[in-house]
């Protein structure tokens, strides 16, 4: 009985997933000559790892609900972000929208505003985002969009159930887990642990080429945060190997106590 109800109700959900093109985590970061950005030569770009959880969750909700649910992937970024969207399409997303710009804003609110405008016109019931983009580490855009859209939002979710006109989510916080109930429409940002993202199948990759990918140029607002400098982190002062095996333990205690003064 309950399962049937859930199916019937999930059917009506229209889902959007926001995905960002970011440098692969393995990439060595080189600073560009301007001292304010990274040198992109030779950098491999990927779909933001946290957004993979969002895509996977959208696809699972769709699979549970059966036909009638549509999943749209949306990205703000350069033309090259088409590739990021093709990855999402290859995983199983139905259609994609690229909002083209030449730069990624520094202030996450500018990004949130542009994406929200697109989301508003699409009339989505559920928006899924990653909890953070691994390039800017802002952990902000999804939650900001919830506010801008006047929708409920939950961030950093590692368990999610959608039922009827609402949902229930769990998020890991310091010292425990918050269990949160929310109403739809909602923005949910995803954390690791929510699911295991699938790899695009060969068939998926072939089909992705034929799926609709719309591009729309957008204007960004004026930047409120000015980049003064992007620099490599200060080198940690060279460390010392204190010795081999358990006999080195007294030297370690001595160093922690009298040199580093942390014991």
């Amino acid at each position, binding site marked *: 009985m309950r399962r049937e109800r859930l199916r019937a109700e999930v059917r009506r959900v229209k889902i959007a997933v926001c995905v960002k093109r970011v440098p692969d985590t393995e990439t060595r970061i080189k600073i560009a000559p301007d001292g304010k950005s990274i040198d992109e030569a030779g950098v491999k770009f990927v779909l933001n790892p946290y957004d993979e959880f969002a895509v996977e969750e959208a696809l699972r909700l769709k699979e549970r609900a059966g036909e009638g649910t549509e999943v749209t992937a949306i990205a703000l970024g350069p033309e090259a972000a088409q590739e990021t969207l093709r990855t999402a399409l290859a995983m199983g997303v139905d259609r994609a929208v690229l909002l083209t710009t030449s730069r990624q804003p520094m202030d996450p609110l500018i990004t949130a505003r542009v994406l929200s405008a697109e989301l508003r016109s699409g009339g989505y019931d559920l928006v899924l985002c990653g909890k953070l983009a691994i390039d800017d580490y802002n952990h902000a855009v999804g939650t900001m969009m919830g506010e801008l859209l006047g929708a409920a939002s939950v961030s950093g979710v590692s368990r999610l159930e959608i039922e009827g006109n609402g949902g229930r989510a769990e998020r890991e916080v*310091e010292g425990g887990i918050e269990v949160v109930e929310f109403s739809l429409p909602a923005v949910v940002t995803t954390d690791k642990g929510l699911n295991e993202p699938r790899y695009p199948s060969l068939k998926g990759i072939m089909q992705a080429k034929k799926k609709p990918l719309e591009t729309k140029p957008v204007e960004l607002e004026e930047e409120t945060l000015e*980049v003064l400098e992007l620099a490599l982190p200060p080198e940690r002062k060279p*460390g010392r190997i204190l010795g081999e095996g358990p006999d080195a333990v007294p030297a370690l205690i001595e160093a922690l106590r009298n040199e580093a003064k942390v014991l």
Partner: protein
Amino acid sequence: MGGVLAILEQREGMLKRVSYEALTAGRRLAEAKGGRLHALAIGPATLDPSQASRFGATTIFAARDDRLRHYQPDVYAALAEDLVRRNGYDAIVLGATALGKDLGPRLAARLSCPLTADVTALAMEDGAIVVSRPVYSGKAILKLRVRAVPCVISLRPNNFYPEESPGDGKLQELAVPDVQLRTRTVQFKEPETAKLDVAEAPIVVSGGRGLKDPANFKLLEDLAAALGNAAVGASRAVVDAGWRPHSDQVGQTGKTVSPALYFAIGISGAIQHLAGMRTAGVIVAINKDKDAPIFKVADYGIVGDLFEIVPRLTEEIKKLKASE
């Protein structure tokens, strides 16, 4: 009016350490700008925010109600938004904790103002706020000048050392606003054994695949117990293997920690692990492979078998603590 608002965080009615860090950073900013430091504390009826006065707050706003025992985003955001609109602060500072990472963006969106998240350094230069924040998984540091007022600033925990500075903190009670709860925290599940969280502990003892078996984490728990004030963390490899809960994972897809002292034991030091701990104060590595990348970031290292080294270390620390 200007000035700075520090948003405080509590657990079980007690202010958390990040609150004092926010107050300290907020006070320095307020002094540099020539404004006042206000504090906002939200929590259960038993919450006592008077300590904020010792850290320089001139007014402490308190919303105390048992319905606010746990984070309720819509209420917290409404209280903070209202206060900022009434008092016109230049900056709002709060910890970049699970709460702060959720509340900060809400507030910035409501106030139409910029957010600088996970900040590790904060200063005034030529009359403008300048922040530094790690980006690209800690592989680079971004320095930004804030060109709008106000600005929401979340601070990476353990990067601002709490410093007392007496204020005359007058307490002002706030009523709980009657807002629609679109998002409701209905339950807080605590782990079976109350333990320190890796993101908050001043000392973190982390283990990786070198531990060989989940049962061997007992060695690290013993070391953490001997140290006191320590939490046990883990690499992703052992979390994925189901040896440790995800809440203990340190790194890019886990928690970002910044303790005074970090032990990496049987952890190779992959770039994604470093992303979560490279801002720790002192890093100690114990690994049998002298070429393991972890030694490149460690302040102190011991090469060898952790099964021999860790019990000895625990024993020596116990002796040291007993002699104090």
